[in-house]
């Protein structure tokens, strides 16, 4: 079994924990409280690692699996933090036929993470996206607000080295 725990060490603060506990205390007796609590937890922490999901489970008196099942059902919940540099590779039709899948794989290989994850140092996170409106430059990726077009997989190491 491959663990899906994030590789980035958890760095939650006492203040964040107190804020979450307050949210749980205010909501837990309402029907259907789990999702709003999870949404607010994500607002507090930015993502929902095992530490946060465990606090929610224990706070609500439900199993961790119950929380995790919901967290993985909805794509809006993130299990990993976003990196300082957020990489989005367009896997829309035009970019895909121009080889963005290979670019994406190369990024996974070079960064040693899977899509949706963040490097252990918190520097880069990798996600797929759909069309950034620059199809003429396909294949395209963005690092934060910077757009890179007409990419070849071999260019990836040099581009990452700039950050």
């Amino acid at each position, binding site marked *: 079994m491959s663990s899906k725990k994030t590789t980035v060490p958890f760095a939650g603060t006492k203040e964040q924990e107190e804020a979450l506990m307050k949210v749980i205390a205010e909501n837990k007796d309402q029907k259907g409280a789990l999702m709003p609590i999870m949404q607010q937890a994500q607002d507090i922490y930015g993502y929902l690692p095992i*530490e946060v999901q465990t606090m929610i489970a224990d706070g609500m008196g439900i*199993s*961790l*699996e119950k929380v995790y*099942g919901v967290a*993985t059902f909805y794509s809006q919940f993130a299990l990993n933090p976003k990196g300082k540099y957020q990489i989005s590779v367009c896997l829309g039709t035009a970019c895909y036929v121009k080889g963005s899948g290979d670019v994406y794989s190369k990024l996974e290989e070079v960064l040693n993470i899977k899509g949706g994850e963040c490097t252990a140092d918190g520097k880069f996170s990798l996600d797929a996206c759909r069309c950034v409106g620059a199809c003429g430059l396909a294949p395209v990726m963005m690092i934060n607000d910077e757009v890179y077009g007409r990419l070849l997989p071999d260019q990836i190491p040099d581009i990452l080295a700039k950050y």
Partner: protein
Amino acid sequence: METINITINGIAVEAPKGSTILQAAKLASIDIPTLCYLKEINEIGACRICMVEADEGRGARLVASCVYPITEGMKVYTNTPKVLNYRKKTLELILSDHDKKCLSCVRSGKCELQKLCKDYGIEDTEAFKGAMNEYELDCSAAHMVRDNNKCINCRRCVAVCEKTQGIGVIGANNRGFATEIASAFGLGLGETACVACGQCIAVCPVGAIYEKTDVDKVLEAIADDTKHVVVQTAPAVRAALGEAFDLPMGTPVEGKMVAALRRIGFEKVFDTNFAADVTIMEEATELLDRVTNGGVLPMITSCSPGWIKYCEHYYPEQIGHLSSCKSPQQMFGALLKTYYAEKMGWDPKDIVSVSVMPCTAKKFEIGREDQNAAGVPDLDYTMTTRELARLIDKCGINFNSLPEETFDDPMGEGTGAAVIFGATGGVMEAALRTAVWKLTGETNDSPIEFTEVRGVEGIKEATYTAGGVTVKVAVASGLKNAKVIMDKIKAGEADYTFVEIMGCPGGCVNGGGQPQVPASVRNFTDIRAERAKALYALDSANAVRKSHENESVKKLYAEYLGAPNSHKAHEILHTTYVKRKVHEI
């Protein structure tokens, strides 16, 4: 009772108001297939195999019969070409993401999916060939393997874990085609607070979850002339093993089971009931000692390893309530390698101690710390009732035509009190038989039957007075029920003296290692009650019904242990518990 009249395939049927189409059809002798539906546990109408056509005056349309209630005048059709083709297509779609390796599947021949494929005449298993999920096996738990390549996402295991046992360490993760039944964050089951009860295996319709097996190692040991391979069988095994050989549920098969074990080649065939009687001697003495000397009360039984693991994970601060007695299986193993080894002049290292249990948590228990009275593990291997049934087949033994044989002496002697250990309330009743006898001045005519603690209800309570002592008892089976009792104890609101808790609902007769009962039977039969009948019949038929009257047990104390709870008895028959966590972070 208010009833509703409908027709099913043109035949008039009267059924109680509130019935589903599935239940009404059963009354009309029509079996509608189900896969996800488990009565009162998993009523989600998800798998769509139970579709029928129902006409409520607006024309016939397809509905899920497992959850669709009947209405007055409804016309139901269960076998039209439309219905049958729909079900067939559903099966083909299930097969499109199923590994279809029936030849090497432990469930082959008893698989609910396989049977449906046969019934519906699936000709092309690749009708919807396309992308397939590929999963690694989860072998992280001591007792079982999960192979999601065979899983059909019916969620029966999820429902039983969460609703019946109140644990919920497995669930549906991800979404759509990627949906997978597993634990949070990709943790292996062995890394979670799973208690190893095996109820998930008992309800799985296919071969996606199954116990780990050491049967081949047992056969190798039997073939090794330098080893003494000795087997013990738990009370509940004899109440269910017959089902694997098509005997009616509740048929006691003690004699044939003993005969089969001898033919497999075990040197001695003994009975865990012997150790159950010893358990009563130790536990009743411990209880009276706690009552007299102000020990931790209520005292809670410690026979069920699933319950013990549950208590350690979820109520670590309450482990002082647990009786220090090892489970009967472990007491047996401990006595086998000490007392019996000495008697026979055997080196404990040459003994291979094997058990047949209705339980998967026993596979976890044999590896626990402090279960090695002779310096070697009390138990070497344990197999479930299902594994024994498969082994009997493998060895070519025609079970149903075997003669009735009896257990070997002396560790094959068990009383009626011991055999009811396999049903919820049984340990309590057995303990009461001996405790009341002790409290009332050791007369021979102390009461035998304590019917208040019998029956399949999840929680039972009773109060008894004997010899000036009043004892309030509670009996719980199924861990969700155990939780109710434990929350009371934790809050200091429980005034019980003695509590029996069994991990599985109904006790060991419904253990996670018992033969799997297909949903077509399970949804309409109380397995717990049917199997328990076999045990109470064996109790009534036994001339000796109180543990303290077991002659071999008396001899054990006279020759070897001295008295119950003696120093030696403590060293061999008692154990300790550990505080565990629910989450490892």
